[in-house]
C-alpha cells in the first residue's frame, strides 16, 4: 500500500517537474532532483585514492559536464555536507578539456555524441563518471542512472571504476546491476 502511494506521489512529482521544467530553468525536473541526491550519495559510497586530493581537507568536487539538468538542486543538496574532512563543491564544465581536478563527473545527455572522446580524455584519471545516457555503462561510464518503472536504478561498470583507481562500496554494488567488460 505504501509503495503504491509512494509511486503515485513520485509520479505526481515527476509530472510536476516535467510540466514546470521549461519555464523555470533554475528548478530541475523531479527525476534530476533524485539524481542530484544520487550524485551526492555516491560521494559517500565511493573511495578515492589519496592522490586524488591535494590535501586532507581538499574539497570533493562534483562536476556537471555539458548542460546542467539539476538547476540549483545539486548545489542545494551538497551545501554544508562533507565527506570525512572534505567539503563538497559543485562545478560546471562545458567541455571535457575543462575538466581539471574533479571527483564525480556527471555527463549530461547533451554530451551523448562526444561520450567516447570524453571517456578517452578521462581515462586513467581518478574521476567517477556518472551519466544517464542509455547504455552508457556499456560504453565505459562507471555508473549509469537508469530510469526503470519510475525508479532510478543503477548500472555500474566496476571494471572502469577500478581502472581509474576507485573503489565502489559493496553496498552500492549490491543495489546496482553490474555491467561492462569484465576487467
Amino acid at each position, binding site marked *: 500500500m505504501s509503495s503504491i502511494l509512494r509511486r503515485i506521489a513520485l509520479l505526481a512529482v515527476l509530472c510536476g517537474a516535467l510540466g514546470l521544467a521549461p519555464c523555470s530553468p533554475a528548478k530541475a525536473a523531479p527525476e534530476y532532483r533524485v539524481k542530484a541526491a544520487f550524485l551526492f550519495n555516491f560521494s*559517500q559510497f565511493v573511495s578515492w585514492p589519496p592522490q586524488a586530493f591535494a590535501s586532507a581537507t581538499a574539497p570533493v568536487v562534483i562536476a556537471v559536464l555539458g548542460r546542467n539538468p539539476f538547476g540549483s538542486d545539486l548545489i542545494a543538496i551538497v551545501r554544508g555536507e562533507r565527506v570525512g574532512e572534505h567539503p563538497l563543491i559543485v562545478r560546471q564544465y562545458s567541455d571535457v578539456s575543462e575538466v581539471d581536478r574533479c571527483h564525480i563527473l556527471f555527463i549530461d545527455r547533451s554530451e551523448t555524441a562526444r561520450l567516447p572522446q570524453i571517456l578517452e580524455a578521462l581515462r586513467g584519471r581518478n574521476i567517477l563518471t556518472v551519466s544517464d545516457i542509455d547504455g552508457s555503462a556499456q560504453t565505459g561510464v562507471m555508473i549509469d542512472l537508469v530510469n526503470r518503472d519510475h525508479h*532510478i536504478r*543503477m548500472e555500474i561498470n566496476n571494471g572502469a571504476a577500478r581502472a581509474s583507481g576507485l573503489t565502489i562500496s559493496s*553496498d552500492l554494488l549490491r543495489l546496482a546491476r553490474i555491467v561492462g567488460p569484465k576487467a
Partner: protein
Amino acid sequence: MTARTRRIRRSLIGMLLLTTGIVVVLTTAAFSVYEVVTTRELASRDLATLAKLIAANSTAALAFDNPGDARRVLATVRTERHVSAAALYSRDGTLFATYPATVGKSLPARAPAVGERFAPSQLVVVQGVFQGNLRLGTLYLKSDLGVIYERIRLYALIAGIILALAGASAYLIASRLQREISDPILALAETATAVSQKGDYSVRAPPAPGHELGLLTGAFNHMLTRIEEAQSRLHIQLARLDLLHRITRAIGDRLDLSSIFQVVVGTLEADLPIDFGCICTHEPGAQFIRLQSIGARSLALAGALGLSQGEPIPIDPNGLSRCIGGELVYEPDTSSLPFPFPKRFAGAGIHSLVIAPMIVEQSVFSILVAGRCASEAFSSADCEFLDHLCGHVALAARQAQLHGALRQAYDDLRRSQQAVMQQERLRALGQMASGIAHDINNAISPVALYTESLLEREPNLSDRARGYLGTIQRAIEDVADTVARMREFYRPREPQLVLARVALNRTVEHVVDLTRARWSDVPQQRGIVIQLHKELSPDLPQIMGAEGEIRDALTNLIFNAVDAMPQGGTLTVRTRASFIPDGSCGAVGAGEAERRVTVEVADSGIGMDEETRRRCLEPFYTTKGERGTGLGLAMVYGMVQRHSAELEIDSKPGCGATVRLSFPVTSEAPQVSAPSMRAQPERRLSILLVDDDPLLIKSLRDILEGDGHRVTAADGGQHGIDEFTAAQKREMPFEVVITDLGMPYVDGRRVAAAVRAASPTTPIILLTGWGRRLLAENDIPPHVDRVLGKPPKLMELRAALADLTGSRAA
C-alpha cells in the same frame, strides 16, 4: 523422649533446612537477578549489534531509495526469534520499510527518537543509519523479552526442585547427624542431669562414636569416675574423722589409762572395724611389752594368740622394735614374716597387722595393735588414721597423767597447809600455856617454899597442922605438875633427841589426865560415854626415851581411839613388860631374850579396813576429812622409829583397833636414885638474890636465911648487877648469885653475863618458870652454872648450893 531432646532435634533439623533453603533461595535469587540483568544487557547488546548490522547494511538502500533492498535487509532478523518487529525510516522520518511487511500499523508512523527503551516484556532499539557522517535514516527494532522471563521461570522451577531435593537431603543429613552428634550429646546431657539432680556419680554416659564426641564422653566419664572416687574417699575420711572425734571425746572424759584404752579398742573393733585390737604398755628401756587392754571381741582371739592380760611379750627385732622406736609399722602379710610376734598372729588367722606407737615426751609408753583377717587389709588412710588416733590417745593419756599429778600436788599442798596451820595453832596455844605456867609457878613458889620450910623446921607443929601442911604441899606439887605438863603441851621440835629415863606408867597417867577432856568431857556433852580402863603393869622397867615425844604419841593414839568411837565404847590403855624370844629378832645372842616394854591403846570402835590399815601410817593419809591432818599416826610412827621401837596395829572393820608400841629396854638402865634428902652446904654463904617478884624474894630470903646463909636481895636485874659490883668493891664479894630469868629491862641472862664478867668464878643459879623447858631444849644460857625451875624445891636448891660451892671449895 523429653521436650529438651525434641527441641534439640527439631532445631538441628530446622537449622539445616533453614540453611539449605536460604542458600538455595539466595543462590536462585542471585542467579535470577544476574540472569535478568545479564540477559537484558545481553539482549540489549544483541539488539544493538543487530541494529548496527542492519543499519550498516541498509545505508545504500536508504541512500539510493530502494525499499525492496531495505526489506531484504530487514528480513535478516528472521533468524532472531525474539525480534518481533523491525522498520526503517527514511531521512525525512517517514516509514521506508518494515519487517514483517504486515506489521506497519503497530509501528510509530514517524521515526522515534534514537535510544534504547525497555517496556514490560519488550525492548525497543532505535538507531540512526549513517553512511560516514551522513544520516541516511532511522532503524527501529523491537525485541520480545518473554524469552527472558520464560528462562527465569525455568530457573524458579529448577530452584524449587533443588530446594526440595536440598530439604530432603538436609533432613536425611540431620537425621544422621542426630544419630552421630545429638544422640551422644543428649545422652551426655541426660547423664549430667542425673548426676546433678540425684548426686549419683556412678552413672556413666554411653560411649559415643566419632573422635571428638568420643573424647568428650570419655573425658566426662573419666571426670565422673574421679569425682566418684574423690567422693568415696571423702566419705571414708568423714567417717574416720567422725570416729576420731567420737573416740577423742570419749577418752577426753576419762582420766584413767585403762578406761581410755578400753574405749579406744572397743570403738575401733566396732567402727573401723578391725578383727583384733589390743593395747600393750611399754616401760622405758624394757625389752618386752605387756598386754594392757584387749577388745571385747578380740578376747576369743587372744586365747588363740596365747595372750593374756599383763603377760610380757618380748620385743621382736623387726616390727615391734621399730614401733618401740616410734614408728608406725604395717605388716601386710604376717604369714610371710619369720619373727615370733607376727607369726603368732598369722597362726590365729590375723594376716594383716598395724602396730602404732603412742608417744609421750619422745618415749613410747604404749602401742596399739590392730589386726584384720585378710592380708593387705589396711589402706594407707587406715594407717594414717590409726597413727593420728594414737597421737590423740597419747595426748589424752598424758593429760590423765598430768591431771593425776596435779591433783596429787594439790592434795599435798592442802595437807601441808593444814598441817602448818595446825602447828601454828599449837604453837600459839603452847606459848600462851607457857606464859600462864610461868605466872602460876611464880605465884605458887612462896607457898611451896614456906610449906616445905614449915614442915621441915617446925617440930612443934601439931599433927593436924602437919597434916594440913602436907596436903597443901601435895596440892602445890599437883599444881606444879599440872602446870608443867600444860607447859610442855607445846614444844618445838628438838634438833636432836635427848633421851632420858622414862617411866611409861607415869607417862600414861599424865596422858590420860591430859586428854580427859577429850575422852570424857566432850563426849559426855553429847550424851556419849567412853569408859577408860587403865591396865598398867606395876613393875615396869624404865626405858630410854624422850618423854615428850612418847607423850605426844600416846595423846595422838587416844585421840584416834576417841574418834573411832563416835557412839561411845571402851578405851583401854595397857602397859606390860614382855620378853621376845630369840629368833624373831636375831639382834641378841642365842639363848637370851630381849626385854621390851609394851604400851597398847585399844578401842571398841569402827575399826579399819585393809586399805586403811595399810596406808594409815602414810603422812597426810586421813579418814577424818577436814578435821584430820593425816599427820597423827605418821608422827607416832616417826617417834617409834626414833626410839627403835616397834608398832603394830590390829584391826578389823567393826571390831575396833589396837595400836601396840613396843619399846626396847636397855639393860644398863639403872633405877633412879633418890636425891639425898638433907644435903647441906658445909658453910654459910653470902648470896645475892635477884628477882622482880617481892613475894618470891621474901620467901626465898626467909628459907635461905633460915639455913643460915647471908642473903642480899635485889628487886631487878640492874639493881642486882649494881649490888654485885658494889660488893666486889667492898672486898666482900657474893659467893653465889641466884637470879630470876624473866625480868623487865635487864633479864637473868644479862645479870649472869655481868656477874661472870666481874667475877668469873662466882657460881650463878638461874631460877625460872621456864626452867624445865630450857633444860629440855638444851638452851641453858651461857655463864649459868645451874638452872632450877619454879617453884623451887628446897632440897634441889640446897643440893645445888652444896654442889656448886662444895666443888669450888674442894
